[in-house]
């Protein structure tokens, strides 16, 4: 039993902080999805991706041959925490080159695919920016029911259909696509495949969808006879579901970053409460104490999942547990935070840095975006079905 990081990790933590000090404006705190929504923020994020790549941090957990350093789980945890805390942008190369496109290609991709796509991700180049197209209008939580179809014709696949809620499609150079390659199946999970699609393909249309606050994160994508070379199939045809589940488990391991982000907003709010001199009030103190406890507890669970991974134990339900946990915690944080900001909490998050903005605009921004986070990458409820089924061995509930 040990509840502290080693010297190596703590040294790495200070290096990251030095990097933040050297490369970010004072008082910088990037918000969720900033890079998708704002052109200047996107350019800044890409410049940081490049610098992170030069530091060998962008894809540090990857093996050296793919441009990583084979960093330990704990170094990854420290990086994730710090990235969340300082709001370091550009860490994922779209949605999401670093988190699952690269690792999935290493597992399931051909040598040719690995050589073609992995280096640009690791280098932090615009060519290494990815979006991920899973959801469809009629396939949300029931992802396996997706209908977008890839028909094999000679050495090409011809894709027709529609994807929706595709984050970052308007920034991406490549698309990580899940679609159906066999409609004659008895079980909907069969007959799915993963493809790499060039965003410049003919017949591909990307339309922006604004979210309810007016931000542009989502897109809808139409495929009209989009031709993709057959060697863009990733892994085995019709065996896409298992590969997709592996990729999704990479995606759900976001808790550590949220841990850092939540702690930063907590810290900012605490300073604000002291500054406007309301921290002495019992109801305010009680809320901070409650949040501090929740944050500590959620962090320990995220560490536990990382520890299991580090020890080579099978990690199945833990990332889902932690995603659901942070979905709930972030909402609580914003509810308490907005209440503390009072009238200032009604500022429009589309206009950052006004003279009325308090706490770097982080609280009201998260107030709207935490809902999106709770839906993305498997809703809170979807995560709970995973924990129920695999963590508790209860019968399937849907």
């Amino acid at each position: 039993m040990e509840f502290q990081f080693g010297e190596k990790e703590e040294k790495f933590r200070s290096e990251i902080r030095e990097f933040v000090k050297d490369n970010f404006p004072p008082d910088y705190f990037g918000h969720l999805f900033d890079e998708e929504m704002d052109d200047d923020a996107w350019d800044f994020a890409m410049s940081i991706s490049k610098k992170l790549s030069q530091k060998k941090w962008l894809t540090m957990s990857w093996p050296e041959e793919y441009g990583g350093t084979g960093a330990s789980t704990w170094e990854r945890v420290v990086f994730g925490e710090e990235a969340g805390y300082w709001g370091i942008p550009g860490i994922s190369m779209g949605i999401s080159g670093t988190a699952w496109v690269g690792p999935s290609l290493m597992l399931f991709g051909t040598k040719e695919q690995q050589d073609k796509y992995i280096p640009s991700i690791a280098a932090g180049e615009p060519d290494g920016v990815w979006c991920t197209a899973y959801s469809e209008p009629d396939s949300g939580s029931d992802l396996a029911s997706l209908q977008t179809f890839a028909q094999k014709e000679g050495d090409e696949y011809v894709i027709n259909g529609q994807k929706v809620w595709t984050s970052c499609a308007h920034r991406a150079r490549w698309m990580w696509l899940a679609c159906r390659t066999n409609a004659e199946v008895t079980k909907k999970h069969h007959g799915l495949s993963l493809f790499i699609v060039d965003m410049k393909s003919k017949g591909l249309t990307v339309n922006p969808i604004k979210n309810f606050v007016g931000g542009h994160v989502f897109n809808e994508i139409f495929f009209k006879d989009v031709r993709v070379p057959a060697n863009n199939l990733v892994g085995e045809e019709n065996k896409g579901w298992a590969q997709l589940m592996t990729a999704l488990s990479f995606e759900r391991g976001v808790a550590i970053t949220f841990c850092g982000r939540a702690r930063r907003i907590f810290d900012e709010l605490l300073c604000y409460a002291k500054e406007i001199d309301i921290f002495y009030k019992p109801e305010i103190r009680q809320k901070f104490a409650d949040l501090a406890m929740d944050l500590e507890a959620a962090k320990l669970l995220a560490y536990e999942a990382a520890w299991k991974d580090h020890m080579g134990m099978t990690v199945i339900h833990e990332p889902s547990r932690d995603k659901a946990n942070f979905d709930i915690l972030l909402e609580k944080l914003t509810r308490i935070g907005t209440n503390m900001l009072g009238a200032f909490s009604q500022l429009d998050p589309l206009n950052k840095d006004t003279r009325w903005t308090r706490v770097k605009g982080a609280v009201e921004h998260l107030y709207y975006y935490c809902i999106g986070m709770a839906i993305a990458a498997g809703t809170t409820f979807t995560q709970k079905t995973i924990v129920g089924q695999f963590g508790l061995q209860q019968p399937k509930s849907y």
Partner: protein
Amino acid sequence: MDFALEKDQELIKKSAREFFEKECPKDKVRELREDPKGYDPNMWKKMTSLGFLGLIIPEQYGGTEGEFIDLMLFMEEIGRNLVPSPFFSTVVLCGMPLMEFGTNEQKDTFLPEIAEKGKIWSFAQTEQLANHEPEDIKLKATLDNDEYTLNGTKLFVPYASAAKYFLVVARTSEGENPEEGITLFIVDSKTDGIETEIIPTTARDVRCEVKFTNVKVPKKNILGEPENGWKIVDYVFQNTAVLKAAEMSGGAQAAFSIVNKYAKERKQFDKPIGSLQAVQFKLVDLLTDIDELKYLVHEAAWNINAGSPSRKLNSMAKAKANAVYHDMCYHGIFLHGAIGWTEEMDIGLYHLRTRSLEFEGGGTDIHMEKIAKELESYQPDFLNLK
């Protein structure tokens, strides 16, 4: 970071679990509920001979000199098996402050008696305010010729009816600050002027009213510094917070297993109720809470063990335990349906301990304020970067 137990920690956990599963099944727990002693002297003897009472007492006093983490793991097992015994009051409430603040003579006299003979001790603090605050301490101790005279009434004194000694928190002077003027006394329970009466409580873990009428105590029986006894009470409180939280964590884990199993077996609408999302999601929430509690306790205990106790983490562990243990027991009964609300099911036995467990080591509001107090001096990282 390492969430695993060391080999010897595993061993302590395993031997405690096996012992209590064998010696303290639920039938025994039910039987002891009807026994005014509230514990089984035979089990107590076995616990003593197995060295459980000397678990953290130094070897020179007949113990095995285990660490705080060992004790924490042991308390998890006590909670898991609902063991009714004067272990906590003897070892944690009295033995540990004796180790920390006792004179050599006191340690030589009393610690081997605990470790080797299983002499029972009880901690007498609570009075009418029943709130862990120094204002609650009204029992008067007046000095006359090297001898103190104690007058007053203590409440909810654990296993007082079985205790050989009391550690009594008394007021020796009144000042501006209620934390000052408090002194702790070691009092032989057979001393004239002590009257004990059992208070009927739901856990039946024997909480007593103890009246002290002109009870004479020699000056040498003061524990620690006179007038500065609140420091000892605080030390006991911090340990109690973490170790009661450990007991509650073990209890909540066991209660959870019972309910998770039941949800797989109980069928309605031709399917196990665990397949219903309302039930399954509640179980998932409880699991998350229980895991959080377990690691908050482990983290707090690890810090104490490492010699860097954190008041903030101690309070988090106990506040979380208060919330989770209640929630687990409430929903544990609820998810069973009507049968859960009867004497037949074990889950109710866990629920009957909520109030006792929550009070000892401090209720939630107390700990929330203690966490907030620590946040007053907290320095956020983003301010340190500049």
